C-alpha cells in the first residue's frame, strides 16, 4: 500500500536520481578537464624560454632570424632583438642607481663596444668600477594567450593558430597599423617590402617540420629554447614548472608565453 510517507520519500529519491547528469559518472582525466575548462584540446602549445644569465649579446640569433625570415638585412627592423642593460652607481657610490639600455640595430652585429648608444647621437661609456650589473636580454614575440594585436585587427588578418602561435596573413593584411600600436611589447613592425605588418612567428615553417627556430639553432650558449607546454616531459615545460621564471609586462594581462630566467626589475 502506498502511504503518504512512502510517496514523498520515493518522489524525493526519484528527483535526486533524475537530477544526476550522466556526466557525474564520467571519470575525468586532467587533459579532459583542461579541455572543458579552457575549451582547449590542442596537442601542442609552443612556448619559449630565455635564459638571460647565459646570453652574451653576440647577436647571432638576430642575424640568423633576419636571414631565415627574409627581413631586409640593412633595414632597421627585426623580428627579434637583444637589449643591453647597464646599471651603474656614480663615483661617490650613492644609493641612486642609473639604468642604461641600448640595442644598436637590434644587436644584429652584437655588442662590440663598451660604449652605450643613448640615442640622438649621444653616447656614454661607463667605467668598469661603476657598473653594478650588466646583462643582455633577448626579446621576441610573446605569442600571448590573450593577444592584444589579434583583438584590434579589423579584418581578421592576424590570428592565433591552434598551437598558440600568432600569425599574420600577408594577403589579407591592409596595413592599418592597429596591431603595431596595440602590442605592448613593440614586436610588430611594417615589412619594408611586403608593406604589411610583420613579427616573429617562432619560425612557423621550421617548428612545424620538427626543427628548432633559427635563433635557437644559432645561439651557441643555449640562452634560447623552444618547447611544447602540453608535453609534461618537455625540457622547457619542466623548467617553467619547477624553476623561478618571469614574463614581461605581466600587468597587461596578455599572458605572454615567452618565459625568462634571471629577469631583472630594470627590464622593460
Amino acid at each position, binding site marked *: 500500500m502506498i502511504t503518504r510517507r512512502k510517496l514523498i520519500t520515493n518522489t524525493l529519491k526519484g528527483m535526486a536520481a533524475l537530477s544526476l547528469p550522466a556526466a557525474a559518472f564520467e571519470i575525468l582525466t586532467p587533459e579532459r578537464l583542461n579541455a572543458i575548462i579552457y575549451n582547449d584540446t590542442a596537442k601542442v602549445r609552443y612556448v619559449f624560454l630565455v635564459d638571460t*644569465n647565459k646570453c*652574451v649579446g653576440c*647577436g647571432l640569433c638576430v642575424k640568423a632570424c633576419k636571414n631565415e625570415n627574409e627581413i631586409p638585412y640593412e633595414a632597421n627592423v627585426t623580428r627579434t632583438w637583444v637589449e643591453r642593460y647597464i646599471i651603474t652607481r656614480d663615483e661617490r657610490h650613492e644609493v641612486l642607481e642609473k639604468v642604461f639600455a641600448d640595442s644598436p640595430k637590434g644587436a644584429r652585429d*652584437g655588442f662590440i663596444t663598451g660604449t652605450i648608444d643613448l640615442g640622438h647621437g649621444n653616447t656614454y661609456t661607463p667605467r668598469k668600477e661603476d*657598473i653594478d650589473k650588466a646583462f*643582455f636580454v633577448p626579446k621576441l614575440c610573446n605569442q600571448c594567450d590573450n593577444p592584444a594585436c589579434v583583438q584590434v585587427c579589423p579584418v581578421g588578418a*592576424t*590570428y592565433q593558430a591552434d598551437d598558440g602561435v600568432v*600569425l599574420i596573413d600577408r594577403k589579407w593584411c591592409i596595413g592599418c597599423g592597429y596591431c603595431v600600436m596595440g602590442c605592448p611589447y613593440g614586436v610588430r613592425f611594417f615589412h619594408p617590402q611586403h608593406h604589411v605588418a610583420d613579427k616573429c612567428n617562432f619560425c612557423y*615553417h621550421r617548428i612545424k617540420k620538427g626543427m628548432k627556430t633559427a635563433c635557437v639553432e644559432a645561439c651557441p650558449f643555449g640562452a634560447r629554447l623552444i618547447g611544447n607546454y602540453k608535453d609534461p616531459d618537455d625540457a622547457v615545460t619542466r623548467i617553467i614548472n619547477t624553476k623561478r621564471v618571469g614574463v614581461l609586462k605581466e600587468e597587461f594581462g596578455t599572458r605572454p608565453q615567452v618565459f625568462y630566467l634571471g629577469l631583472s626589475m630594470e627590464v622593460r
Partner: protein
Amino acid sequence: MKSHVWRPLYLAAGLLALFLIARYIYVPKDFGTGERGYRYSFHRLGNEDEWKAFKVKYKGTEYCKDCHSDKYQQIMRSRHAIISCENCHGPAIDHPENPAKLAKETNREHCLRCHFRLPYPTSGRSAIRGIYPGEHNPGAPCSACHNPHKPQEGLR
C-alpha cells in the same frame, strides 16, 4: 496595399542583398576559425599552410657533417663546438647546388661579437676570454693567426 512605407523597405532589403552578394564573392571560401574561436582565430585557414611552406634556409651543423667531416671533427673537439657552422658561413640554403660555395666570415667584427672584452657582472659574457681590438693586432683578420675551427690549438 499601396503605401510609401514599402519603398525604403525595398531599398534596405536590396542593399542588404547587395552587401551579402559582395561579401560572398569577396571573402575567401576558407575563412573560418580554429580551436581558439571567433575571438582569436577568425582567419583564412589556408594561410597556415602558406607559412608552413616558407623556405628553410639554416640546415644545422649535422647537415655539414658528411661532406666536410674534417672540419666537423676539428671543431667538435674545440671549444668552438657550440657554434653552429652556419653562424660563420651563412645559411646553407641548397648548398652545394645553390650556392656552390658558402661564404667565410673573416672580418674582425664577427669574432668580436663574443671576444670583445665586456667584463659584465651577471652576464655570461664575462666568462669568455676577451680582447680589446684596438690593442690586439689591429688591422689583421683574426683567422690570420687563430684557426677558427681549432682556436685553442696554438697559432698559425
